């Protein structure tokens, strides 16, 4: 191994440390007794988990987050899939504009989405409801779902669908019997990823949630008070949830890509 290779490896380790340090920190300090965490560490304790999860509003928030993530992920995935299929199969006028419409949302700053959604959902009468958050998260999740489904469709031989038609299947039947089964791993993957996006999103949710707080919105509001190790405990649960979802999402795509 060249000396420069060692230097490059050390650099990679340093970068990954920077990226994962905050995640590890939260996990470690969630089990540490000090109120104002520092090193050397205090004693091991599960106190912060007990206090955090003995509060009913924490459970309510987790319930809200779960409902929102489950619904928003389903809608995002459906929307992402139909859009990816359209892009895969059809060419038409204004297609670049169509695709821009599909892929633009993540480039709009969340604070702006929050403000626009707050005003718009207020007019529609669903501001301050969980449905409002679901609507907003679907807009934000759909582009990711579309990207995943599109990737999978690009691995499908277009002749596969045509063969089904030639064998007498209607377009609908071919969709049901050929395209959807082929895309199933991507659909599940997209569902997990968009659920993670929804589960972690807090700015738009904060703008439109009113009294129906999701977990990250609750964290945001606790943070505006003071340093509170309960956040580490709640945060660790949030980390583990979204990391599990993203890991599953990726494994599903990678397994199929390599096969």
């Amino acid at each position: 191994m060249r000396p420069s290779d060692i230097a490059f490896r050390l650099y990679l380790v340093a970068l990954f440390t920077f990226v994962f340090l905050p995640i590890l920190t939260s996990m470690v300090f969630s089990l540490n007794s000090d109120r104002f965490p520092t090193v050397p560490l205090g004693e091991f304790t599960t106190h912060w988990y007990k206090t955090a999860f003995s509060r009913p509003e924490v459970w309510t928030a987790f319930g809200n987050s779960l409902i929102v993530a489950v619904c928003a992920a389903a809608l995002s995935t459906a929307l992402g899939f139909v859009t990816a299929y359209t892009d895969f199969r059809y060419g038409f006028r204004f297609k670049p504009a169509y695709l821009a419409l599909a892929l633009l949302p993540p480039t709009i700053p969340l604070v702006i989405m929050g403000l626009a959604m707050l005003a718009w959902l207020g007019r529609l009468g669903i501001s301050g409801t969980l449905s409002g958050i679901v609507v907003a998260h679907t807009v934000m999740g759909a582009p990711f779902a579309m990207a995943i489904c599109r990737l999978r469709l690009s691995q499908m031989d277009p002749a596969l669908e045509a063969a089904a038609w030639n064998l007498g299947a209607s377009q609908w039947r071919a969709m049901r019997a050929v395209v959807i089964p082929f895309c199933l791993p991507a659909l599940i993957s997209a569902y997990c990823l968009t659920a993670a996006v929804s589960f972690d999103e807090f700015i738009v949710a904060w703008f439109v949630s009113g009294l129906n707080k999701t977990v990250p919105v609750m964290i945001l509001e606790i943070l505006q008070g003071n340093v509170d190790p309960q956040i580490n405990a709640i945060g660790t649960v949030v980390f583990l949830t979204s990391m599990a979802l993203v890991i599953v999402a990726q494994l599903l795509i990678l397994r199929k890509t390599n096969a």
Partner: protein
Amino acid sequence: MSKRFDAYPYVWRLPLLIWQGLFFVGPLILMVAMSFWLVRNYRMEPDFVLKNWDRMLGRDYFWNAYWVTLWRATLAGVLASLIAFPASYALAFRVSETTRRWAIFFLIVPFFTSYLVRVYAWQVLLAESGPINAVLGFGGLGPFTMLNSGFGAMVGYMTLVLPLVVILQTFSLAAIDRNLIEAAWNLGASPRETLFQVILPAARIGLILGATFAFILSFGDFVSPFYLGGSKPPTLSILIIDTTKSGQQWPRAAVVAIMMIATLFVAAFAAVGAAYGRRK
């Protein structure tokens, strides 16, 4: 084939148009319209006046926030690109393909993992009496004030954008034809010349894309400047939140939002021009 109307294509095409029209384009158009409305007795009334534009763009505090945000986001784009590059280079050229794949895998995870909690963790880590200062203290250094400063905000921006920038750079570097690099070597180019005259130009699109995304994300972020930067001076996103949440002045917040979107558009077009434009 009969020529009767086939509904099939439209079933797949229309959902996006309807949904994004209703819940993406609609809200943004309303926001633009709102910037011309008036607030009377804490209620918005449709109108067409330039008062909000006048009030916001005529104030120093808006422009101070604007330049701070623009400067910090530009710095974040440049810094993220520079910090990411050696790592991306290593991932593209110095490790096995399996390692690269796993590295990308583990960079995607934090990108979708609660940014807010990670920023909170930095708040703990960077505190005056926090772990980092404690470690530095063993070496007889510090304590340093790292929170509530431009430095703190920059740490937050890097947390947000570094994984994405490394991913984009790595993909573009790994896609370079190895023969090109070997040809440069064979023709007697020094490592420096190879880097600047072969590798960087060939990976141009990914490098610019990475910097642009870092700029866009940092420009719109409110968490890092608020919790790590101490919100002094405020950035545009903090201005929007203050104006919306405390002042009920949604139309004025809309003015700030439109200025932000316009700036991002200009930046995105400039980046696309730089990435795909003809080489000099």
